[in-house]
């Protein structure tokens, strides 16, 4: 395995442990945050705040380098254009996320952990992405 793939594997492993520890794999914790009228569960806000804070500080340091440590270049979107596609896509994603409480990272961990609902959700998720890839170029 190349060093780049090994680094990706390690980054993914740390990311995955974070998803598990933060309970985001449990879609009811997520739904408990999204439904403000019930027993509101603020955990998702703590997860997001901590993740963004750590990544923001780290990115500032990392982007001082001319290039990634293992070669290539930083592949970061350059565009700042806010278009219908961005807003419509985000809205459609949000509706689906609010229906089930699953988003792509946690639900894939759920698949590996044998969570029944994740096994139903993920094939549909890949189908939806494939359909979008055919329709939108």
């Amino acid at each position, binding site marked *: *395995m190349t060093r*780049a*793939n090994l680094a990706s*594997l390690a980054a*993914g*492993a*740390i*990311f*995955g*442990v*974070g*998803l*598990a*520890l*933060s*309970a985001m794999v449990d*879609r009811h914790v997520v739904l408990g945050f*999204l439904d*403000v009228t019930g027993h509101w569960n603020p955990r998702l806000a703590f997860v997001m705040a*901590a*993740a963004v804070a750590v*990544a923001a500080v*780290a*990115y500032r340091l*990392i*982007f001082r*380098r001319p290039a990634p*440590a*293992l070669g*290539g270049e930083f592949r970061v*979107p350059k565009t*700042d254009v*806010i278009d219908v596609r961005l807003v*419509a*896509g*985000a*809205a*459609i*994603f*949000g*509706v*689906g996320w*609010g*229906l*089930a409480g699953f*988003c*792509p*990272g946690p639900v*894939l961990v759920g698949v590996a952990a044998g*969570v*029944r*609902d994740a096994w*139903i*959700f993920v094939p*549909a*998720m890949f189908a939806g*992405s494939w*359909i*979008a*890839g055919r329709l939108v170029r």
Partner: protein
Amino acid sequence: MNDWAASAAGGALIGLGAAILMWSVGRIAGISGIASGALEGARGDRAWRIAFLAGMMIAGAVALQFLPAPPRAQTGSTPLLIVAGLLVGFGTRVGNGCTSGHGVCGLARLSKRSLVAVVTFMAAAFASAFVMNHVSVWP
């Protein structure tokens, strides 16, 4: 460790994983994009994606075994899960990102596009969760 501390610690690890991916290979840790690229992307651009997803899924599943409160048994409505999955897959592909790509990485690098995406998908998710819980028509 109480729930909130575990959430913050978990979030910090998510941010750290995203940082390591950017530092090493220069990529955004956006799971919807990494996953669709792993399945449909250019051949030479798949290995790092598969490595990241394998690490995330295996380490995440193993970590769940050691946590005091594993996810409770989940038995949601199958049609609802399928519709939700289709919407999540479709929307993240069209909008170029999900909770990790726009939410964590996009906000962390102060992207205007990601801020708009996050506000939009949070608002839509609050609305759909509200409808689900109060005007539910699902079996």
